[in-house]
């Protein structure tokens, strides 16, 4: 009885949103979906799997690759081998997937962002995401994939009543042990680590406007950054400068407000996943690099956004 095994990622007691992408690709594979989870008081959103296997260990032990292979061994011994084992393409997911693939000698394709049901081909991005490699498993037996977040969650299917099973305790590996979580230091802002940057340029006018941008950034959970003129004028500290003589950033979203897009600035952010530019000048060079553009007054937009978000 073949099935798809989805290894869930639970961190800090949160069943990560990206697990839905793992379940989504499992739905496309059209076999029974078995969700493997650690112990803990977290909520699994939705009813999209057939079986949930809860292990008796907490998330830190569960996500330790040296333990995970033991967990997998037990499951395969009792249920037989799955067709596909799915992990999230994330820090933990990829770490687990590679160790599992190496230990059990299974084929592995990572960062899968597409799948063709007819041909069983996985799409994987290559060369700075400019080309996709279409990969297929050679031979039979279980294979391992990690899936890119946001790629498959629309494919989840509502399922009937879910069956639960438990996995009993086992001897823990000693080669690697979890010590503790470490929070981000609240020192100098590190804009290179931010997923969402709200960046301001000369176009915002003067230093007094910064406080309102700071407030908006707070509401949007964005990190504030700026172009060189803004730092030169000391409206923002140097650590928050984006550009050739500042930092190079690649956030998920770069919201550029009042930034014209001088070459030296573009060089520092052009590889951002999604660039949204707001500028009064329709000829501003930044629009050549942006994915979305808004021609208008950045300060007015900021105020409207704040009203909407606060309300």
């Amino acid at each position: 009885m073949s099935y798809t095994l989805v290894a869930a990622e639970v961190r800090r007691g949160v069943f990560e949103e990206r697990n839905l992408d793992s379940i989504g690709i499992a739905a496309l594979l059209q076999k029974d979906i078995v969700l493997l989870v650690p112990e803990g008081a977290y909520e699994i959103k939705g009813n999209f799997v057939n079986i949930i296997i809860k292990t008796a260990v907490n998330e830190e032990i569960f996500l330790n690759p040296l333990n995970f292979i033991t967990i997998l061994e037990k499951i395969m011994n009792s249920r037989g081998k799955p067709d596909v084992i799915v992990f999230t393409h994330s820090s933990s997911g990829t770490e687990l997937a590679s160790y599992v693939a190496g230990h059990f000698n299974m084929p592995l394709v990572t960062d899968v962002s597409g799948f063709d049901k007819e041909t069983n081909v996985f799409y994987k991005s290559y060369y700075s995401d400019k080309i996709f490699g279409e990969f297929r498993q050679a031979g039979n037996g279980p294979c391992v994939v990690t899936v890119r977040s946001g790629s498959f969650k629309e494919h989840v299917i509502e399922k009937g009543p879910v069956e639960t099973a438990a996995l009993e305790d086992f001897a823990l590996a000693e080669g690697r042990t979890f010590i503790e979580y470490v929070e981000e230091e609240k020192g100098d802002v590190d804009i290179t680590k931010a997923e969402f940057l709200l960046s301001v340029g000369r176009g915002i006018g003067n230093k007094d406007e910064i406080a309102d941008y700071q407030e908006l950034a707070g509401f949007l959970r964005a990190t504030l950054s700026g172009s060189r003129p803004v730092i030169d004028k000391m409206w923002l500290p140097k650590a928050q400068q984006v550009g050739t003589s500042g930092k190079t950033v690649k956030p998920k979203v770069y919201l550029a407000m009042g930034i014209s897009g001088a070459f030296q600035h573009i060089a520092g952010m052009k590889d951002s996943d999604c660039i949204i530019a707001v500028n009064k000048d329709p000829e501003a060079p930044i629009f050549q690099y942006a994915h979305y553009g808004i021609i208008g007054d950045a300060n007015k937009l900021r105020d409207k956004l704040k009203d909407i978000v606060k309300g």
Partner: protein
Amino acid sequence: MAIQTQTRVLTCIQCGKCTGSCPEAGRTPFNIRMLVRKKQFQHQIEESIPWYCTSCGACTIRCPRDVKPSEMIIDLRSAMVEEGDIPATIQKALENTFVQKNPWGRSRAKRGAWFEKMEIEIPHVSETESRRLLFTCCIQAYDPRCMVIPVNVATILNKAGVEFGVLGEEEACCGNEIRRIGELGLVEELQEENKAVFEEYGVKEIIALSPHCMNTLKKEYGDLGIKVSHYTELIASLIKNGSLVPRESYNKKVIYHDPCFLGKQNNIFDEPRDILTSIDGLDLLEFSRSRENSMCCEGGGGRMFFEVEAVYQRNADLRVQEAVDRGAEEIATSCPFCVMTLEDPATEKGIKVKELSEILMEVL
């Protein structure tokens, strides 16, 4: 180089003319006279200090002895480069130049994009009889704002019936800024590559679009047997002999800013002015510090890639303010670095910065 530097600094009499002409003096911790003194006594020099230098060359030009302080700065920097201990952004610029042959790290394959898009056909220099090469320059090849300059100059030369060709992706960074940054090994590689290409295609003459490129090709590439000049020299002579005639008028007050690498370092002051004064209606204004005393815009010497620690009012800001105070409507200059550094404060103060070719395109 280290030995030459050590010998030269010993001739320093600490007169202070260098610091007196330095664009960084007084406003930043950079004091070139003191640095020379420290070098004389082999004292430790704080590692961020040498990076303030903009390579304007004023100190070396005015020194009554043969100290060549700007060369000493290159020497200090090259020691740090060999140690591997240089600011991260400078490192990136050097690594980019190594891989893509331009400090911005843009694709080498796209270095010729500017002429591929033009309506007139620009031949490869090997296809020309004159073997006259238009040397593009990294920033003009890739920055959309500066890309208009080679397009303009190519159009103007074409109009004047002057034959020229380009190298496209076979052109590598000239190495002028790289030398100022102190990566002498990389400079050697760039020079070797460019020289080999010049030889392969029998290049006889080089028209450089940037004063920086012209400077190094003319003075630091050794005896190439090739005539090197800046495009303003050629255009000034074309206007003089009637091959180019500015027909339209340009009724504006234009103030001219002498770039360091064109002006004080290579004595090309008149040609850009001749071009501007040949235009009907153009009212040419002068800065108080002009020609040999022109105020450095602080774009050179690696400053494009490096943020200094000191916070002070930039020269570019002061320069633009003076332009406004003198009633200028536009600032004209003939160097892409000056264009880029002056444009930010200029836009803020409501005055335009025009590269000479941009003015020419409106009047020819």
